[in-house]
C-alpha cells in the first residue's frame, strides 16, 4: 500500500512539474546565437524598397534582390530599378558568415558594359547611403559580445526576450545593444544601438512579421539615427523563399547579362 502511495505521489509530482512549472529559460548566449543563425531558407527573392528621410527630403531606391545561403557563404545580387540615375546598376557580393573579413564585391556599370571587382566595404559602412550599415543588416557576431537577459516584454502582441549585448572589443561599432527578440521566431522586433560613448545612436523597429513558405520573416525595418537626425525604412515585397535559384545567378555572367 505504501509503495502504491509513493508511486501516486511521484506521478502527481511529475505531472505537476509538467503542467505548472515555467518553460525553462534559454541562456542569453543561446538566444543571441539563435537570432544570428536564424534560417531564411536556402535562397530568397524580393523587391527591396529603401526610403531615406533626411533634412526634409526623401530619397527612394528600389531594387530586385536575390540571395542564397550555402556553405556558410551568403551570396547577394541586387539590381537597381529606381531612381533612373542608378537603374541598371547591379551589385554582387559574397559574404562569409563565419568570418570577419570583408567579402568579395563586384559592380556592373550599365553605361560602360563593365563588370568590376571592387574593394570590399567594411561592415561598418552605410548600406546604399542609408542609416543601415552592412553590419546592421547581417547582425553582429554573438561571440564578440557579452550577453545578459534583462527580462521579457510584449511588443505588438508578440512575446520578446530583452537581450543586452555589451561589446567585448573597443573597436566594435556599438558599445551596447539592447534587443527585443521574438520568442517564437527569433526575429529582432526592436533594437537600441549605443555608440562608443554610451549614447543612444540608433533605434531599429521591425514590423510586418509574416510567415512565407513556412519561414518567419519581417517585411519592414525602420532605423532612426539620432546622431544624423534621419531615418531609413527598408521594405520587402514579393518575397519568396527556396526558389531553387541557379548558382549561376550569383556570378559575373549574371551581372553581365544585360
Amino acid at each position, binding site marked *: 500500500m505504501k509503495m502504491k502511495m509513493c508511486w501516486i505521489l511521484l506521478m502527481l509530482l511529475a505531472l505537476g512539474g509538467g503542467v505548472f512549472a515555467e518553460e525553462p529559460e534559454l541562456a542569453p548566449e543561446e538566444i543571441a546565437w539563435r537570432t544570428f543563425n536564424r534560417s531564411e531558407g536556402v535562397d530568397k527573392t524580393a523587391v527591396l524598397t529603401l526610403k531615406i528621410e533626411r533634412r526634409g527630403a526623401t530619397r527612394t531606391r528600389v531594387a530586385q534582390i536575390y540571395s542564397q545561403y550555402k556553405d556558410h557563404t551568403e551570396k547577394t545580387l541586387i539590381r537597381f530599378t529606381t531612381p533612373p*540615375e542608378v537603374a541598371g546598376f547591379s551589385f554582387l557580393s559574397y559574404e562569409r558568415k563565419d568570418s570577419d573579413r570583408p567579402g568579395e564585391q563586384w559592380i556592373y556599370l550599365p553605361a560602360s*558594359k563593365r563588370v568590376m571587382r*571592387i574593394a570590399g566595404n567594411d561592415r561598418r*559602412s*552605410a548600406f546604399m547611403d542609408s542609416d543601415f550599415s552592412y553590419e546592421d543588416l547581417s547582425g553582429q557576431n554573438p561571440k564578440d559580445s557579452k550577453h545578459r537577459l534583462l527580462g521579457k516584454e510584449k511588443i505588438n502582441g508578440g512575446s520578446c526576450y530583452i537581450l543586452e549585448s555589451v561589446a567585448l572589443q573597443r573597436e566594435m561599432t556599438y558599445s551596447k545593444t539592447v534587443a527585443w527578440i521574438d520568442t517564437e521566431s527569433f526575429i529582432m522586433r526592436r533594437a537600441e544601438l549605443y555608440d562608443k560613448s554610451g549614447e543612444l545612436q540608433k533605434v531599429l523597429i521591425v514590423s510586418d512579421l509574416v510567415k512565407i513558405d513556412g519561414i518567419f520573416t519581417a517585411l519592414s525595418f525602420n532605423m532612426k539615427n539620432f546622431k544624423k537626425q534621419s531615418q531609413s525604412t527598408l521594405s520587402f515585397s514579393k518575397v519568396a523563399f527556396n526558389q531553387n535559384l541557379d548558382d549561376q545567378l550569383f556570378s559575373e555572367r*549574371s551581372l553581365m*547579362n*544585360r
Partner: protein
Amino acid sequence: MKQVRISVALFSLILFLASPVGAVCLDLHGAIATEMNYFTEQNCWEGIREWGEINLRLSGGEPDFSQPSFFQFSADAILQEDRPQIKVREFYYKYSLGNWDLRLGKQLVNWSWNKGESPLDLVNPIDFADQALLDGYDQRLGVYGLNLLYYWNDRVVVEGIVVPKAPIARFASEGDWRPTDLISLLLHLEEMGIDWELKPWPRREQDSTEYGLRITSTIGRTDLGLIYYHGYRDTPIFRQVTEDTGLKLEGIYPAEDIWGFQTVHAVGAFLFSGEVAYRPEALCTDTRRIGEPGQTAIQRRSEFRWALETEYVWGDLRLIAGCFGAKASDNPKTLLGLAPTLGFLSRITYSLWDGTLQPAVEALYIKESDQSLIHPYLIFSPCDGWEIKAGLCEIGGAAPAGELGQYRANDYLYLKVIFYY
C-alpha cells in the same frame, strides 16, 4: 562600311522582333545634361564653351537575369554651339544559350579591369570630339560586331570578338589639337627650320577588320586574364617622306597585334590590379629621325604599356592610386605617341551627408612630358534624378594632348547639370 553597319543593325532588330523578348518589357531611361565651361587664355578648344546632351536608352527584355534575350539601344543627341550631332552608342541584341552568350550589333566592350589608366581597353576607340568630361564611358565609340562568350565552370570565361569595320578615334574638328607625337614632331621641325607639309587627315583602310580573344579565370580572390587582339592603331602615326621641297607628312593607321595580361587581387578592403599590353614589332613614328631625301622616317619596334593600381575603401572614403608607363625596345626614352614613359595617378572620393555631396580630387603626373593635372570636383545630388557637377581642371606643363587630350584647356572651370529620367 555604312552598308555593313546598316545590315548588322537591321539583323539585330529582326532578331529582337522575332524573339519573345519584344513583348515582355521595354525600359526607357536616359539623361539630359548641359555643361558650361569657363576657360583661361590657354584655350585649345576654342569655340566650344557650352554644350547639351540628350541621352536616350531603350532596353527590352524581362528584368529577370535568367531570361535569355535582351535588346539595347542607346543614342546621344549632342547639341554644341556649332556642331550638333546624333550618335548611336549602342544598338545590339543579346542571346544566351546554355553556357554561351552572343551579342550582335553596335556595342561597348571593355576588357580592362583598371579604373584609371587602361592599356587593355582595346576594342572601342575614343571620341575626343565629344565634350563629355569625367564620364569615361561617354567618350567610347560603340563598334558594330559579334561578341561571343563561353562560360566554363563559372570560373573560366572565353570571349571572342570580331569587328568587321572598326571605326577610328574621333578628334575635335577644329582647334589645333593633334596627338602628342605630331605636335612634338611639328615643333621639332620648326626648331630645325625644315619646311613641312601635312596631308589631309587620313582615312582608315577598307579591310580594317579587328578581332580578339580573351580568356579570364578566377582563382580564389584573384582574377587573371590573357588577351590577344589584332587591330589597328586608332590614332594615326605619321610617315615622314623627305623630299627636296621639304618634308611631307602622311598619316597612316598601322595594323598591330597586341598580347595582354591582366590581374586583380582582393585583400580585405584593398584591391590590387595590373595590366600589361605588349605590341611586338609595332610601327611607330620616331620624331627625332629626319631621313635623307627619299627616306621615310618610320620604324618598327616592340612596345610595352603597363598600369598598376590599388584601390582602398574605408567607410565613405574611396582611394585609387596607381602608376602607368610604356617602354619601347629601341630606346626607352623615345616618345611613344600617345603613351607616356611613366606616370602616376590618384583619385580620392568621399561621400558626405550619405551621398548627397561627394567631393573628389584626381591628380595625374606624366614624367616624360612633365605634365600634371589637378582636378578637384564636387558632385551634388539634391534629390532623386538631379545631379550637379562642378570642378576645376588645372593642367601644368604642355598643352593638353595625348593622355590629357580629353581636357580642353590648361585651366578651366566647368559646371554640369544632369537630369535623369
